[in-house]
């Protein structure tokens, strides 16, 4: 027999149990998400650290069967690719970001903003194929230039949007003050607004660099890879992610070891750039 007080008590107990159970489950979810990260780092260090030595950084790859050798070509290649992509992409992206921040609600600005957000979602392999059909076909060869263009196409929408957001964080009064003092529009932006937003924009650029440095898919048919040291714009170049990909799917144990080591270095590089982005002097107008 169930009197009223008993059933209320039961409901209370059920609700408390459900509360406990579900809150515990959220903790379990957090644990399940973090475990792969720990495992990945554990395996990177345990499998990769052994293959790391000075030769790895200063020598070229050796043929299968020979031991030793390094990945100098890939380090130089990745650095050149990222450098040229930055040179090509950042000026356009910052200009577009200024346009968006100053245009605000103009119809064209709305279109550009929407396209930038949508472009952020284009699969990187599609960008690689687009650049192949455009640059590689036109040049008749794979090249550092094509790889850099592919990475720049990925970088532009990212940096455009962060630049816009960082410029918008600069107080209106600064712009109005400069204009009231008779600054022309271009001097206001270049002399007052951009310096004020500098560290924020730099953070955005660094975050984008960390991302494109680890990209493989856009380089498969553009930079292509190269077993030799190369930094000329019209020659194919190696890159760290490409080499990791090739080595990982190869059947050779020694290459697998090198792939782990290269991944460890790549992760180290990406994390260093990301951390640098975090600790770049904070934008004084940010998040107050």
């Amino acid at each position, binding site marked *: 027999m169930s009197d009223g007080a008993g059933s209320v008590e039961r409901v209370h107990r059920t609700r408390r149990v*459900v*509360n406990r159970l*579900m809150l515990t*489950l*959220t903790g*379990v*979810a957090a644990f399940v*998400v*973090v475990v*792969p*990260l720990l*495992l990945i780092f554990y395996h*990177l260090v345990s499998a990769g650290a052994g293959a790391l030595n000075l030769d790895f950084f200063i020598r070229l790859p050796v043929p299968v069967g020979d031991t030793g050798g390094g990945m100098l070509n890939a380090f130089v290649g990745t650095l050149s690719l990222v450098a040229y992509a930055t040179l090509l992409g950042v000026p356009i992206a910052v*200009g*577009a970001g200024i*346009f968006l921040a100053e*245009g605000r609600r103009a119809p*064209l600005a709305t279109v*550009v903003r*929407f*396209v*930038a*957000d*949508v472009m952020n*979602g*284009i699969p*990187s*392999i*599609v960008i690689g194929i687009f650049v*192949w*059909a*455009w640059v590689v076909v036109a040049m008749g060869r794979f090249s550092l230039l094509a790889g850099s263009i592919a990475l720049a*196409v990925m970088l*532009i*929408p990212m940096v455009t949007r962060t630049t816009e957001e960082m410029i918008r964080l600069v107080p209106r009064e600064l712009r109005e003050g400069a204009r009231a*003092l*008779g*600054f*022309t*529009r*271009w*001097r206001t*932006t270049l002399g007052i607004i951009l310096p004020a937003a500098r560290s924020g924009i730099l953070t955005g650029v660094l975050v984008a660099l960390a991302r494109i440095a*680890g990209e*493989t*898919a856009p380089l*498969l048919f553009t930079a292509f890879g190269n077993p030799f040291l190369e930094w000329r714009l019209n020659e194919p170049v190696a890159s760290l*992610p490409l080499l*990791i*990909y090739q080595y*990982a*799917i190869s059947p050779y144990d020694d290459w697998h070891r090198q*792939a*782990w080591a290269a*991944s460890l270095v*790549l*992760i180290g590089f*990406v*994390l260093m750039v*990301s951390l640098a982005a975090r600790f770049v002097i904070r934008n004084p107008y940010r998040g107050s």
Partner: protein
Amino acid sequence: MRPTPDSAGALDLSGRSRRGLLSLFPSRTRGNLADQVYAVLVRSMGIVLPLLFGFIVLRIGVAAWPAIRSFGPAFVTSTDWNPVAREFGALPFIYGTVVSSFLALAIAVPLAVGLAIFLTELAPRWLAAPVAFATELLAAIPSVVYGLWGIFVLVPFLRSAVQEPLAATLGGAIPFFAGPAYGFSMMSGAVILSIMIVPFISAVTREVLTAVPRDQREAALALGATRWEMTWQVAIPYALPGILGGAILGLGRALGETVAITMVIGNRPDIARSILAPGYTMASVLANEFSEATGDLYLSALMEVALLLFGITILVNVIAQLLVWRVSLRGGR
């Protein structure tokens, strides 16, 4: 020398002094030459993005046109992909892309929402900060590193610890889990994708959960709700459109992910009912076959695959974007 009214122009640090009172009230229409050049320059950099976008569509569209013309709609309904016989049906890849992405979403959304609730509602600060940082790190890991880890750690683990027991027990009754356990399979692909998209979904979910007004939460607690009831019946419904937007953004990432999934999904152009069997995705077939494509029609068929992949991801992203914009517009009101 006594300043004359005209020397107001001396304040114009641009070095160009202009005459008259108008220089104090610069109008949009009467900017100086440098300003006009500047405006055109900035505007043209803005226009680069839509132009680039149009150019991508055009380039890939033109390259895909021969395949579109010769196969017509059969391209997306045929399951035969046999370049040697010049048969090109993309259905196995479309199937692989869609199924692996939705499976990944099914794994990732509960985890990401659980994680976000844990971080916003439950975890003390000393625990929340490192866990949040760890999920951000997860987003920073390059896809090829996920692939490497997938090949040598995740796939062997899934095969022996999950797939073989699953095939032995449920495999007979449920065709989705039918053996043999290959290891390199749709399931491995979905699992690696889910790990990769969790950070994006949980970041958006956290953001919208923190945006739920305090008084809503306190009202629920004052009415006697438990913490879970407050979260589930008040905070989550309030944040739902944002969570949905985050999930769709995650879906967009999963659909376009290339290298990591190529390394673990097995790359076999079949539509297998079992998720323990190998599959193939649109992005993977591009990565694997594009550089070996012999013959114009083969190349064009791959271009059409790229165009389809592009179309699907753009559609998904536009939906996500509109959803997120709508939510942020509503919040601004």
